[in-house]
């Protein structure tokens, strides 16, 4: 068990390193630099700026310097946002994205799991069919469509909800629904099929035979086994929500990390691109490792190797 955990963590560190290296070199493949777009910069001034950020050195030396600094927790200064370190920007923006993503995961699990369980229990009945149709349709709508359509009907037409920003609790409603629709439907489908497997097993019949009520049998006896596939899905789901929120942040003009990342690329803010990529990648990798390990604790039948 310990061996597995150590191995998983080492793999995670390796992945993070590969992502950092890839990002660094891919980013520098693009011709042009961060100072080209600015007007009327004398060659001397540009050289001075490049020297300040270390951009005048050979690429490989830049890479070594960056990786060395990174090991000391120093992600450098943002080039475009003068006076801010990359760590500051991430520290300010990440909580916004995390709150949104976390809420969406919570909603997806809280709605998806019961929906899937009920559908499995009422297999072939009207309720099951309604849930199937709803969840099949739900995984075919990209989140940017959900959000723009909601924006049109709820904000523009009915004027019920604020359309931009995250200033009031109501303004969370639309972004969270838009983010959680796909995972909710996906979890409901996953839950339905695994619940169908579990319901057919002998121990369920035993439970019913000894007089356990329907509700208790489904939500206590069956749920524990049926929820396992959902747990494995949580890792990729967290990743998808953290990165999928880019588009939601753009539509609802939410000042989150995704917004920062997307706008840093065209402006060639190298340290900020590197910082956000590495940070998000590490976060996602960490979530995957935690979910994998948690999985082994939840289901003792699984032998880790």
């Amino acid at each position, binding site marked *: 068990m310990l061996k597995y955990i150590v191995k998983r963590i080492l*793999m*995670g560190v*390796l*992945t993070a390193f*590969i*992502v950092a290296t*890839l*990002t660094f070199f*891919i*980013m520098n*493949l*693009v*011709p042009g630099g961060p100072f080209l777009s600015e007007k009327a910069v004398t060659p001397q001034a540009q050289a001075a700026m490049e020297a300040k950020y270390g951009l005048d050195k050979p690429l490989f030396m830049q890479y070594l310097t960056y990786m060395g600094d990174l090991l000391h927790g120093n992600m450098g200064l943002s080039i475009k946002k003068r006076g801010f370190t990359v760590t500051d920007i991430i520290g300010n923006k990440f909580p916004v994205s995390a709150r949104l993503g976390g809420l969406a995961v919570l909603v997806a699990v809280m709605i998806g799991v019961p929906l899937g369980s009920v559908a499995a229990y009422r297999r072939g009945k009207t309720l099951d069919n309604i849930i199937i149709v709803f969840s*099949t*349709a739900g*995984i*075919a*709508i*990209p989140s*940017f*469509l959900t959000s*723009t*359509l909601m*924006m*049109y009907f709820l904000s*523009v037409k009915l004027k019920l909800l604020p359309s931009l920003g995250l200033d009031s609790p109501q303004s969370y409603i639309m972004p969270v629904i838009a983010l959680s629709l796909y995972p909710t439907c996906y979890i409901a489908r996953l839950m339905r099929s695994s619940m169908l497997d579990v319901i057919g097993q002998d121990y369920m019949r035993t439970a019913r035979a000894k007089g356990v009520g329907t509700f208790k049998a489904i939500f206590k006896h069956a749920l524990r086994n049926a929820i396992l596939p959902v747990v494995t899905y949580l890792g990729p789901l967290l*990743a*998808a929500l953290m*990165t*999928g929120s*880019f*588009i939601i942040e*753009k*539509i609802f003009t939410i000042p989150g990390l995704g917004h920062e*990342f*997307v706008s840093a*690329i*065209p402006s060639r803010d190298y340290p900020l*691109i590197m910082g956000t*990529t590495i940070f*998000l*990648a590490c976060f*996602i*990798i960490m979530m*995957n490792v935690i979910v994998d390990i948690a999985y082994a604790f939840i289901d003792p039948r699984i032998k880790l190797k």
Partner: protein
Amino acid sequence: MEKKKNLLSFQLNADDFLPATADEKESLVIMRESVGFWQDGFRRFKKNKIAMTAFVIVAVIMILAFIVPLFYPYAYEQQIKGSERLGIMEYSASELDRIAAGESVFPHFLGTDQNGRDYTIRVLVGARVSMTVGIIASALILLIGSVYGAVAGYFGGNVDMVMMRIVDVLYTVPDVLIIILLAQVLKFPLQNLSKVPGFGWITALGPNMVSMFLVFALLYWVGMARIVRGQIMVLKQNEYVTAAKALGATDGRIIKKHLITNCIGTLIVTTTLQIPSSIFTESFLSFLGLGVQAPMPSLGSLASNALNGLQTYPEKLFAPAFMIFIIILSFNLLGDGLRDAFDPKMKK
């Protein structure tokens, strides 16, 4: 009556060895022809009403997206002067004059955009772009994934270990981050490459579209590789593989002729289900403005552009939105139907 035989006697009853009568022969005739893998699958597929409907819808959309634009009276980049921002079925003043003069003017079913381009044809061409990206990206994924997975699964041992560790690492790489980065970055090298003779086709497709194929192909083959590897590891235990080896077949031939052909069902299903997810990602990228280049429309970029005039022209959003929804939904249902019909694991 013959007397009761000793149970241990070897004396045989001669009647058992008479030639078979016509009646007896008939009972041995196989009533139903044996059904092959494909026939069996198609029979099951045809019974599945939802999957058949999805198949018909996919076919209709294919015709709309790939064939109808060839005959359509307007072109997707054609700017009609004086007919900017028309609503559904509206005509501009000059077009109304022409109608009054007895000419027939092809209607703008969905109106026009801010540059006077017919919106119907833009949505259709957008669907074509989205489907092309989805299909070509899935084909590349199929190619890379199946070869990689087959080699890893067939050779096993250390080869498998190293190859699958690479897959594991790529699997945990946050895809959207790298895709956004690569989509931005690949534009420039591809633009330079398109000037090199022999690579002119890049300009025809647009560097952005080519970079999108590359990005999808580079990142998404890992899922396919895992599935194929699992299948090959089971299949290579079969006797026919040993037989082929004994006959002196090379490893390459065994993989190509025997193993890949035997997991074709899985390959078809996985590829069909890959198409909607590629379309999903493509529309996501185009929505962010990282997709195909203007004036080429994509469903994602059309939806994104429609946001500005949402209040006055909501149909400009609804049309591409509905198209994306229908395409993804019908490909998903088609893939599910194919899986029920062809995946050996789904047989009960």
